[in-house]
C-alpha cells in the first residue's frame, strides 16, 4: 500500500488526535490502526519520537499519570492545527478514500472467487451430466472424467482446476494477511517479491521440471501444489511449461503461467 502519510501529514494527524482529547501514546497508535482498518499500523518507534518532537516544538505537552505519559495539545498546537485546516480536511478525505478502497478490494476479491467457483461448479456439473456419474471412488483420478485438453501437459482438467483454486486461495490469504499485518516494513513488497520469486523458481524446478525429483515442499501449500501437479501427470522436463518468462511472471501467482491456453477450464483474466 502506498504511504498513507505524505510529508508532515502524520504530524498533523497526531495533533488532531490530541486535539480531540488528551491521550496515552499507545492509545494514539491504536486509534491510528483503527482509522485505517489495520492497514496502516504505525509502530511505537514511529510515534513516540514524533510526539517528542512535537513537544520540543511546544505544540504538545505531557503529564505523568500512573507512570505513563498522557499527551495534551497546547494553545500553540491548536493554532498550528487551525492554520493547516485545509491540509487536515484533505488528509481526512484521503483516509476515508482508503477505507473505500478496502471495501472495493474486498468486493472485487469476493466476486472473483465466487464467479470462478460458479464457473467451476457449472463446468463440473455439465461434465457429469454429459458423461454420467463417475465410477466408485478409488477407480478414478482425483476429480473430473472428461477428456484431457488437447495440446496441454495437463491430462486431467480436474487437477488443473485444483491448481487454479490453489492460486486463488493463495492470493486471498495473502491479501488477508496483509490486511491484518501489525507492522509492515518499508521494503515488505521487495521481500515478498524475493520470496515469491524463489518459490516460483523452486516450483518450476521441482514440480514442473522433473516430476520424479519433486521433493516435499517446505510449506504445506508447496506440497499441495506438488501433489496437484504430480497427480496431473506433469509433462517431462523441457516441455512447454518449462520456460515462462521470469519477468512477466513476477507479480503473478505462479500457476497463472501454466497452460492457461491449453484448453483448460480457467477463464483467462
Amino acid at each position, binding site marked *: 500500500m502506498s504511504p498513507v502519510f505524505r510529508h508532515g501529514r502524520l504530524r498533523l494527524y497526531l495533533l488532531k488526535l490530541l486535539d480531540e482529547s488528551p491521550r496515552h501514546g499507545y492509545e494514539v497508535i*491504536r*486509534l491510528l*490502526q*483503527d*482509522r485505517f*482498518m*489495520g492497514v496502516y499500523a504505525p509502530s511505537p518507534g514511529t510515534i513516540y519520537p514524533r510526539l517528542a518532537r512535537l513537544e520540543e516544538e511546544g505544540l504538545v505537552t505531557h503529564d505523568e499519570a500512573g507512570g505513563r505519559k498522557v499527551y495534551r495539545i497546547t494553545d500553540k498546537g491548536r493554532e498550528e492545527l487551525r492554520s493547516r485546516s485545509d491540509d487536515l480536511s484533505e488528509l*481526512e478525505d484521503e483516509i*476515508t478514500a482508503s*477505507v*473505500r478502497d*478496502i*471495501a472495493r478490494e*474486498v*468486493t472485487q*476479491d*469476493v*466476486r472473483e*472467487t*465466487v*464467479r470462478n*467457483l*460458479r464457473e467451476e*461448479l*457449472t463446468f*463440473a*456439473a455439465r461434465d*457429469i*451430466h454429459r458423461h*454420467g*456419474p*463417475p465410477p*466408485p*471412488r478409488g477407480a478414478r483420478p*482425483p*476429480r473430473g472424467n472428461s477428456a484431457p485438453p488437447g495440446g496441454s501437459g495437463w491430462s486431467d482438467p480436474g487437477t488443473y482446476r*485444483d491448481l487454479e*483454486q*490453489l492460486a486463488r*486461495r*493463495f492470493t486471498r*490469504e*495473502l491479501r*488477508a*494477511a496483509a490486511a491484518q499485518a501489525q507492522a509492515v516494513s518499508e521494503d515488505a513488497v521487495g521481500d515478498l517479491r524475493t*520470496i515469491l520469486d524463489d518459490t516460483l523458481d523452486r516450483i518450476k524446478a521441482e514440480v514442473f521440471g522433473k516430476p520424479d525429483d519433486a521433493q516435499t515442499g517446505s*510449506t*504445506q*501449500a*508447496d*506440497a*499441495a501444489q506438488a*501433489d*496437484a501437479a504430480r*497427480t496431473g501427470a506433469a509433462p517431462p522436463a523441457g516441455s512447454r511449461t518449462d520456460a515462462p518468462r521470469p519477468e512477466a511472471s513476477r507479480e503473478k501467482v505462479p500457476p497463472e503461467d501454466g497452460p492457461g491456453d491449453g484448453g483448460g477450464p480457467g477463464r483467462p483474466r
Partner: protein
Amino acid sequence: MPRWTVDAPATYDFDRVDTLRVRAIGGSVAVLSTGDRACLDIAGVTGQPLVVSHSDGVLTVSYEDLSWDGLLGWLRPDKTSAAITVTVPKDCPVQLGVVTASAIVSGISADTSVKSVSGAITLDGVTGAVDARTVSGDIEAQGLGGTIGFNSVSGDLTLADGSVGRLDAKTVSGRVTADIELDRDAALRVATVSGPVAIRLPAGTSARVDLRSATGRVLSEFPGLRHSQKPGTSTLSGDLGPDDRDAAGPGGPGVVRISTMSGQVTLLQRDQAGPPRAAAGSAGSSR
C-alpha cells in the same frame, strides 16, 4: 434525537453503535467491521437527501418516508443515489435494504439481514446468522458461518468456502451454487422451481441426502446413493459418510435436501487431497 439531513459529502464518528440500519436506493453501501470506533461516510449524494439518525446506539441511514414496504415505490427511474460507507464493531447487528444499490458487508459476527430489489449483495466473512431476500439481486458470499436464509425470485445465491450449520434457500429461477462444509447436525435445504442447483461438499461428509426433481436431471458425484424414478419425480437418496457409522462420532450426520421442479440438481464431491483448508491457512500465516 440527533438527526441530520445529508445532501453533500459528510463524515461522522460515533462513540457507540450497536445496531445499524441502512436503507439505500441507488449507488453503493459498504459495511465493514472495525476495532471499536464507528464511522459513517457519505459521498456522491444525488437526488433525495439522506437522513441520518443516531439514538441509543442505533445508527440509521435512510431516506425520508422510506420503509421497506415502501421501497418498491422507489423503483421508478430516479436519480437518487449515494455512496455510503460505514464501519461498525464486528458484533453490531446489521439490517440493510437496497433497491438498486450494490452492497457489501464484511467481517460482521452478529445477525445480518439483507434485502434487495435488484442490487447485488456481497458478503465476506459474515459469521452471524444471515437472512437475505432479493427479487433479482444476486447474493455472492465467501466464508460465511452458521445459519443462512435465502429467498429470491430470480437472484442467484453463490457461497464459497463457508462452514454451514443451516442453509434454507428458496428461489424461483435463481441458481444456487455452493462449495461449503457442513457443521455437525447441519441442515441444508434448497428448493427451486427452475433454478439449477450445484452443491459441492468435501469427500467424507456425513449426511442423509435426498435430491429430487420433477423434470430436471439429478446427479451425484458421491457414490452409494439410490436412484429411483417415478412418473413425475426423479430421486437420488441415501446416506453419505464413513462406512463405519460409529466413526462419525456423536451428534449424528447432517441432512441435505434439494428439490426442484425443472432445474437440474448436481451434488459434487471435493477431494480432501485438493486444497486443504488447514494447509492453506498455515501457509498464509507462516510467511
